[in-house]
Structure formats: structure tokens, C-alpha cells
């Protein structure tokens, strides 16, 4: 894997992580967390861990985002920080 692409993906992962904990809207935070999981999945593919990447793509970017959005809809979207 080309080093520059790897560094770009790492930077994107960090940006997504920071964004998902700073967004002041829980729905947006949940969606950005899904993006973070998908970026993580790409990083794992670059390390030849295809099974882990497959699991992360189905669970991290799929199911856990759905569960979080369900929880946001059933509780509240407002957050102070």
C-alpha cells in the first residue's frame, strides 16, 4: 500500500473521530461515527485483514449506526457538548 494514501486515511480517521465527538447534534454524531467505522475498515483492508474489515463494514458501519440512530430517536437529539 502506498504510504501517502495510508497517511491520508489515518488523517481522515482522526478527523472523523474528532468530528464525531464535537458535533453538537447527536444524529450527526452517530452518522459521522459510521463514517469513522468505514474509514477504519479501509485501513484494515490496507493491512491485509479482510475478515476484520468485512466484520467492521457490516457491524461498525451498518448495525451499530442503526442502533445509535434508534437510540437517538427514542431519547433526545439535543446535547450540550
Amino acid at each position, binding site marked *: 500500500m502506498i504510504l501517502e494514501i495510508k497517511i491520508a486515511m*489515518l488523517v481522515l*480517521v482522526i478527523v472523523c473521530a474528532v468530528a464525531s465527538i464535537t458535533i453538537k447534534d447527536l444524529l450527526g454524531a452517530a452518522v459521522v461515527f459510521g463514517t469513522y467505522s468505514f474509514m477504519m475498515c479501509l485501513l*484494515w483492508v490496507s493491512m*491485509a*485483514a479482510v475478515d*476484520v474489515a468485512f466484520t467492521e463494514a457490516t*457491524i461498525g458501519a451498518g448495525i451499530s449506526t442503526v442502533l*445509535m440512530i434508534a*437510540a437517538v430517536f427514542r431519547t433526545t437529539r439535543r446535547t*450540550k457538548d
Partner: protein
Amino acid sequence: MHELFAEFGNKFHYYAYFAIMMIGLYAMIAKTNLLKKCIGLGIFQTAIMLFYVSIGAKEGAGIPIIDPALGTADPAAYANPLPQVLMLTAIVVSVATLGVALALIQNIHRDHGTIEEDEILQRLRGK
């Protein structure tokens, strides 16, 4: 100085993983919203998984499935399957525990009407 830079170039991904891990830890400590704490927990978990899987990566190695052209005489041709197995199960367990955390958050919201930690503490003190 040049050696330090070479050292950093070899290990830069570890610093990135520690940065992600610390972002998650900060969210778990400092954010007052319980759902944000759950997101922080997820970030922390995935950082640790990333760290584990990166230890199993090998330069120029393929995915851990037998390539008939290569055979298995040289283990260096395949990535280390052991960290991948351990982290694969950890991901599935992490979503199950996330479900339990969300269930608890819903119960807290029903009882207190809020999922902000400081407001819940105020209500508990007021009672």
C-alpha cells in the same frame, strides 16, 4: 535529529493510534452526554483493535487465505491471522455491549428525562 526523524517515520502509525485512543478516552472522561460517552468508548475500542491488527501486518504479505501458487512453505507470504481472529470476535462483542449501553441510556432517559450527566446528578441531589 535525523535518526529521530527516521524513528518517527518508522513508527508514525503508532502515534496515530495513540492519538485516536486518547480522543476516545477524552470523550469518555470529559463529555457529559451519555451517548457521546458511548461514541468515545467505540473510538477507544477500535483504536485498540487497529493497534492489534497492525502488529500482525507484514510487508508485502497477502491476505491470510492460501494462494495455491505460493503454498504455505513460507509463512511470511501471509499476514498473521491470530490478531485478526482476536479482533474479529472483539468487534462483534463491542456491538452487543453497545446495545446494552443504549438500553441503559433509554432507561435513564425515561427516568430522568435527560441524558446529560450533570443534569442527572443535579436531579439525584435534589431528591
